[in-house]
């Protein structure tokens, strides 16, 4: 069981001693019980921090924001690192970012939090459980989540309202960390990894297409999936259809010869191309934090696409995203024994 006091204490201490430039964590937002990202720079703000089942955001995204901000201002990080609260999946994202030289290990201070026996909630599942009742607080309690509502305390077995990614998570513990809270329950399994994917894959090709066609049709190309993903840190996405002066170095020629792989129209064909390209670009990089899936306002099951890539990578290439900072990248490496039977 993680004691929130310890997290707050750590944050306060680091800020007071100047050991961290900022602490990125979670705090209670203005809309009910849901946590929201918190950016602390003063020790006295440490008491705002929370740790509960609504802390679903992958805060490593804000390390990316921070780095972009610094780059824009022409500064280098210098001095103290940014401290960040990271779950298992989030910490893996941080590892991938470092693997891709996005920042250095010493630029980040990882305050790991173990998801222990459970994980975070899926708002959609929770909504059906609460049935219109508003909750004002959420808490971990062993295998249950406990919600405070106007109608009193509501205890729900965590697995009933947990996000799929947490149910299927095989390493709910931030291996890479400077400091970690909570027990390492790696190896615990609530559902088989890729359970949701397997269920989906069990359908025939025709059914799969029918499902995806409907999903792709719904996409409104709000790009929340891309914006919320720490791995989607490119200054200009290849699927952007507009020319985008990335830096002052970008020449008129480069802007003029921007490739329009897809159109801006939210049509099915374009949405597919966008989402499939995104999945390809995340192959071996997505750490299954599930944020894209969560953020999508129209419930496109984006996670399945990324999961599919993850599963293939694991099973065919023995590849695990975010496993180590110095490790190879999936698509820039190969093994002699990679599958080749599909080739004629």
């Amino acid at each position: 069981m993680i004691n929130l006091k310890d997290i707050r204490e750590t944050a306060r201490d680091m800020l007071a001693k100047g050991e961290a430039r900022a602490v990125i964590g979670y705090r209670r937002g203005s809309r009910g019980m849901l946590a929201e990202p918190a950016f602390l720079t003063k020790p006295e703000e440490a008491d705002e921090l929370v740790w509960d089942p609504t802390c679903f955001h992958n805060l490593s995204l804000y390390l990316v924001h921070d780095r972009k901000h610094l780059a824009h201002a022409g500064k280098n990080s210098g001095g103290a690192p940014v401290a960040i609260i990271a779950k298992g999946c989030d910490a893996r994202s941080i590892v991938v970012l470092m693997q891709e030289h996005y920042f250095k290990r010493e630029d980040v201070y990882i305050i790991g939090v173990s998801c222990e026996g459970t994980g975070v909630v899926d708002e959609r599942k929770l909504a059906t459980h609460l049935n219109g009742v508003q909750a004002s607080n959420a808490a971990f309690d062993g295998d249950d989540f406990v919600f405070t509502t106007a109608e009193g305390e509501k205890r729900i077995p965590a697995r009933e309202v947990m996000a799929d990614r947490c149910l299927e998570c095989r390493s709910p513990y931030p291996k890479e960390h400077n400091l970690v809270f909570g027990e390492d329950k790696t190896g615990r399994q609530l559902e088989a990894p890729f359970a949701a994917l397997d269920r989906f894959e069990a359908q025939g090709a025709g059914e799969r297409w029918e499902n995806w066609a409907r999903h792709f049709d719904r996409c409104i190309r709000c790009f929340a999936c891309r914006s919320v993903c720490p791995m989607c840190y490119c200054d200009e996405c290849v699927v952007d259809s507009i020319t985008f002066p990335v830096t002052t170095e970008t020449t008129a020629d480069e802007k003029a010869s921007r490739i329009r792989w897809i159109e801006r129209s939210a049509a099915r064909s374009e949405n597919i191309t966008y989402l499939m390209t995104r999945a390809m670009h995340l192959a071996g990089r997505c750490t299954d934090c599930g944020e894209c899936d969560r953020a999508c306002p129209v419930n496109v099951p984006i996670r399945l696409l990324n999961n599919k890539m993850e599963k293939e990578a694991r099973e065919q290439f023995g590849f695990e995203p975010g496993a180590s900072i110095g490790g190879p990248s999936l698509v820039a490496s190969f093994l002699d024994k990679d599958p080749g039977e599909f080739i004629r």
Partner: protein
Amino acid sequence: MSKKRTGVFVCHCGTNIAATVDVAKVAREMSGEDTVAFTQEYVYMCSEPGQESVVQSIKDNKLDSIVVTCCSPNLHEKTFRDNAQRAGINNFTCEIANIREQCSWVHADKAKGTEKAIKISRSVVRRVNRNLPMDAVKVAVTRRAMVIGGGIAGIQAALDIANAGIEVILVEKQATIGGRMLQLSETFPTLDCSQCVLSPKMVEVNRHPNIRLMTYSEVKEVAGSVGNFRVKVHKRSSFVDPDKCKICDHCTEVCPVVVPNEYELGLTSRRAIYIPYAQAIPASFTLDEDACLGLNPIRCGKCKDVCEAGAIDYDMRPVTTTEEVGAIVVATGFDLYGPENMPELGGGRVEDVLDGLQFERLISASGATKGHILRPSDHKEPKDVVFIQCAGSRDPAKHCAYCSKICCMYTAKHARLYKKHVPDGRAYVFYIDIRSGGKGYEEFVQRTMEDDDTLYLRGRVSKLYRKGGKVRVMGTDTLTGQNVEIDADMVVLALAMTPSKGTMEIAKTLKIGRDKDGFLAEAHPKLRPVESVTGGIYLAGAAQAPKDIPETVAQAGAAAAKVIALLSQATLSRSPLIAKVRRSHCTGCGMCVEACPFIAIRLEGGKAVVNEALCEGCGSCSATCLRAAIDVKNVTQMQIHEMIEACLA
């Protein structure tokens, strides 16, 4: 850059194309392209008048790029590029659309063939729209070579290069050159004395005006690329001035320190100050810093006192120099597979079980026993000797998957040499099969079996251990299916050849790849066997793969020839179709660096930088980059995008 003025020249190729492709229609369709300013058909574009009209049309119509739709680019790309140049436009703005081999010859249906020919032509027109005029990349060349490793491979390569009038720096890690060959007794298949062949070459190296010898030295860092490498060499201190040392041996007489002699593979010992071999080059003693009592006259200083030549200098310091060379030959040789990895063969801990090199020293006239075969444990002459081949080789499950290639031969040699020394001794050889491809090799083995009465047992040894002053060898003879047990006086393991430690280190330093077994990887297994993947770095000897001396010498000669060919040019010229980074889009993720088979990309200040001298233009980087931040010139993603569009229009 304003819009291109492209000319399209549609060749009939007699009826080769015209019979199944409506050439007039192809020309008509192409003239509808935005950038096409001129089209022409002709019966034989590659004929003299055809070529003339291409040149003339370029001039007359102020064309800046052309597409010739004809046969395979392998045939006439050069022809028409030359024409382009002759007409005053850049040859890289000429492209070929292959509508013969890939179209007219393989499709009989004229309508469909024409449609496909149009698509092919259109896609090439779109491609040419974005072709940049380019000049071949020119790099000036430093006319000096470096050879790393002073075994027979390095020695041969250095001599060949030096004899061509090119300066060579030969860098050897040990105190003497000579490598493994210096440790051998006599060599198959001729059984001539190894040192007798080698020593003159070593002396020649030492005397050669074009060779600078740097022993006791190691390469620490390499920068630059083909034609212009800058190599940092670190020379350890030997504390003895080779020019003054008279090799009088007085120093060793007084040195109180005794350590095992690595050159004799631990069969004997030496002092802290020593000479590896009598024939060492440079001919000088060396003071082993680690063994010496302290390089300090107060603590010891005995050797310095007795050295009349005043050659010993305790204050000598290591030096690091930077050498500029245009090409590098890597000849860092091999080691033997560690017996400690093979518990089934005693794990290196059973007495009187030797490896091949130890046996070489044992029978060498210059070795510890002055050529008498005496087993180490009790210095008695062994009467039953078991030779075990493939010790560690050809065993993918537990050890090395590959065949070490020379063990069959040297085991046969060992058996014969043994029988020569101990005519009443019995020699047994365990083998899997005999691989004796090579001039005179098979005859050599046969003679060992027949004339020298060696018992060849086909099978593996499952176990050996010491029993009553002997080594019990348990194996099977797969030919008879019988279990075999031999109580041997001595066992010799033909251990697998592995890349030497120095080879593994140098591969890292030079960033040249290694194959799956750890040997240095050649650029192409068939076509470029002596080149590394990195331009200007060549491979020779056992560092690249297990091989014997003749093969080593042949490869060294080939590497030298490559170096000579390279360095005889004043400048290098390379294809300009290489990768280019869009710096503003590169995030420095390093994936391209990882993907590039030619190690042509590095990260600098958070951006990918392509080494123009190394890039081969394969495009692996561009297909890997998630940000389309790296492209191969004239085959850019934009061009492919538009070609795809053209193919589907």
